[in-house]
């Protein structure tokens, strides 16, 4: 332990950490460009100057270690003056691009200029221009060399995190410029992260380009449903202009720091996987006799009538002739309701959730081959036993005409077993019910279609591959006509004569924690923003 003083207050910090780490722990703001906690220390931007008493000059906080008795000032006139001078140099060749720059509003040059700007500039307007303005350097990222302040974060990201060595700084002096190495393209699986770590608008996201000014965005904490890693994300959605609201609500996803899961990063598949929230949704409300309705021959039925209808069917159903394909994309709460209703109450023996042959790519960093966010939760909650989790035997039975009815949550049978199988199943099964947020070939042939809310439109929790329970939160209301799965399942349970008295996901989770030893002792408060591990 080292006893130090920062801005007049005493702190006891770990030995050997850097001054900037101590400052961050003390939650004091200090400008920085090149320092990133996830990357090695470069110490080349020089903005993080602090005054240390008894040292002749101000020093950079990111590359100075704390020592016993150090007295540090981050806002003294001397420190401020050094920061101001550095910022002035960084801006010497910086173009006045804010009006057309996508970074404007979340740009550290703008932010720190407000704090430590030299409002009486000493440079004249002759700037060194680069030959090319903004140009794409890969499928996801746009580069504008004039805006770069040469902090080298992107270079270090390529060298240390993805080890693809994409970037380099070329030339010398005021002609130095950042670029991808000659003949290379920035196309690794984590390329989107460089737009996040670039503190200025030099590297920007092509997908988000000119879509929206960042100050119009609302933000909600969530978890990426793209694979079983469950990277922590923020959903950025259009919020401040409801009077201009277009069809698209989600504008982009950003990683959220969680040291136990994804640190500061997410993969590109996850980052750009948000399109299904606003596209290809089932928006006509619940449908009965789906094809007929879609041709517009009958008015759409209401949720109440459809659920009453369903409850009637389920009450009369022969438990041996009905099956449920639950979804590993549903939340723990929803899977718990599926268990209570179909396994415990209706006593249907045929429940499964694992669709074989759906694995994707995997690497040794974040990406997992199981592309479902909650397979672990499904298996811990439904407790079917490994071989029974697989939907294939039930599907086979349906194909041979052994089933009367089938309730499918989200799965696309055509994608799993081929369109031929879907067609046969369709002919052999009398009642095919589909529930899910997005349209697919199975939904197109189902007798009853129940449109569900997407993960951005409901509360709940996912359990990732290592058993970490993490919360997803509601960013906005479900699209017209759809309901959160837990919501209609609760309604259905009432119609079936069960007495589940839950008010919402938090309540359902408490009930789950009360009866399942894996979840024992957990609650939303404990899970918080960073998640909580299951009991093993």
């Amino acid at each position: 332990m080292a006893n130090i003083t920062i801005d007049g207050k005493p702190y006891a910090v770990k030995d050997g950490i850097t001054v900037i780490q101590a400052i961050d722990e003390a939650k004091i703001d200090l400008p920085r460009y090149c320092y990133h906690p996830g990357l090695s220390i470069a110490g080349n931007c020089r903005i993080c100057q602090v005054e240390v008493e008894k040292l002749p000059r101000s020093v950079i906080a990111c590359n100075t270690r704390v020592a016993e008795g150090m007295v540090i000032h981050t806002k003294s006139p001397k420190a401020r003056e050094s920061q101001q001078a550095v910022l002035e140099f960084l801006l010497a060749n910086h173009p006045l691009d804010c009006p057309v720059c996508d970074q404007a509003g979340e740009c550290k040059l703008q932010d720190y200029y407000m704090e430590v700007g030299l409002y009486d500039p000493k440079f004249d307007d002759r700037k060194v221009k680069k030959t090319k303005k903004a140009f794409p350097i890969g499928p996801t990222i746009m580069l504008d060399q004039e805006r770069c302040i040469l902090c080298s974060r992107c270079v270090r990201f390529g060298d240390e995190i993805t080890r693809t060595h994409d970037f380099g700084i070329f030339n010398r002096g005021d002609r130095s410029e950042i670029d991808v190495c000659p003949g290379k393209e920035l196309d690794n699986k984590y390329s989107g992260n460089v737009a996040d770590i670039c503190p200025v608008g030099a590297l920007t996201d092509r997908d988000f380009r000119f879509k929206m000014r960042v100050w119009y965005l609302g933000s909600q904490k969530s978890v990426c449903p793209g694979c079983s890693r469950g990277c922590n994300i923020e959903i950025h959605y259009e919020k401040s202009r409801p009077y201009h609201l277009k069809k698209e609500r989600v504008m982009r996803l950003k990683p959220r720091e969680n040291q136990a899961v994804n640190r500061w990063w997410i993969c590109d598949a996850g980052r750009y996987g948000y399109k299904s929230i606003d596209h290809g949704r089932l928006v006509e409300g619940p449908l009965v006799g789906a094809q007929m309705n879609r041709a517009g021959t009958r008015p759409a039925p209401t949720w109440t009538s459809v659920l009453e209808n369903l409850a009637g069917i389920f009450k009369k159903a022969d438990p041996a002739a009905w099956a449920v394909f639950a979804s590993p994309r549903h939340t723990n709460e929803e899977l718990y309701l599926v268990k209570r209703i179909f396994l415990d109450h209706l006593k249907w023996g045929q429940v499964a959730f694992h669709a074989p042959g759906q694995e994707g790519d995997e690497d040794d960093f974040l990406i997992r081959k199981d592309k479902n966010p909650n397979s672990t939760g499904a298996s811990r909650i439904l407790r079917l036993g490994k071989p029974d989790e697989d939907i294939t035997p039930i599907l086979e039975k349906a194909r041979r005409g052994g089933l009367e009815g089938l309730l499918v949550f989200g799965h696309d049978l055509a994608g799993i077993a081929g369109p031929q199988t879907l067609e046969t199943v369709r002919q052999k099964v009398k009642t095919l019910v589909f529930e899910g947020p997005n349209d697919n070939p199975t939904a197109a042939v189902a007798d009853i279609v129940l449109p569900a809310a997407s993960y951005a439109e409901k509360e709940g929790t996912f359990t990732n591959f290592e058993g970490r329970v993490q919360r997803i939160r509601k960013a906005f209301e479900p699209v017209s006509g759809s309901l959160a799965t837990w919501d209609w399942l609760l309604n259905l349970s009432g119609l079936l004569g069960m007495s589940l008295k839950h008010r919402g996901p938090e309540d359902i989770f408490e009930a789950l924690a009360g009866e399942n030893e894996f979840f024992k002792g957990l609650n939303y408060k404990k899970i918080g923003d960073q998640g909580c591990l299951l009991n093993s």
Partner: protein
Amino acid sequence: MATKIIKRKELGFWDRTYLPAVGLGLWITSRHFFRNMAVHALHLFGFAKNLRGAETYQYPEEQRPLSKRTRTRHRLTKREDGSPRCVACMMCETVCPARCINIVAKENPDPNIEKMPASFDLDLGMCVYCGYCVEVCPEDAIRMDTRILDIAAYSREGMKLDMQKLLNP
């Protein structure tokens, strides 16, 4: 925060009858009427030229002179090649208190300009003519100097201006 309580003045008996106020109003109106009638009659015979009588403009045949700074209908200024100067920075959209500007941005073919509006819609039916949009624009791309004041339409839709109308007032 310190609050100061101001007592509302009670209305007296005469105030509540409104009669003195009505009388006062009639008195002011008739004073102007008779004074102007007398002044204009004297002007007719070439007297009292140094007194000014109230005037009536025969609008719309006769236009009233406008001050140079009057804020009138908006326009978007053009570059030399005729394309809009606007770079779709959305400053005006952000500052507009009536929220009547809606801009969609797109890539500018010239990489040195980078950005331009794909559409620029302004709803004059909602605009409060505050002029903030002009003030905030970093490109001098929007101005309120067309001197067009008589804006009327048969529907709310008719009050909306798109980019073409804004570029060619």
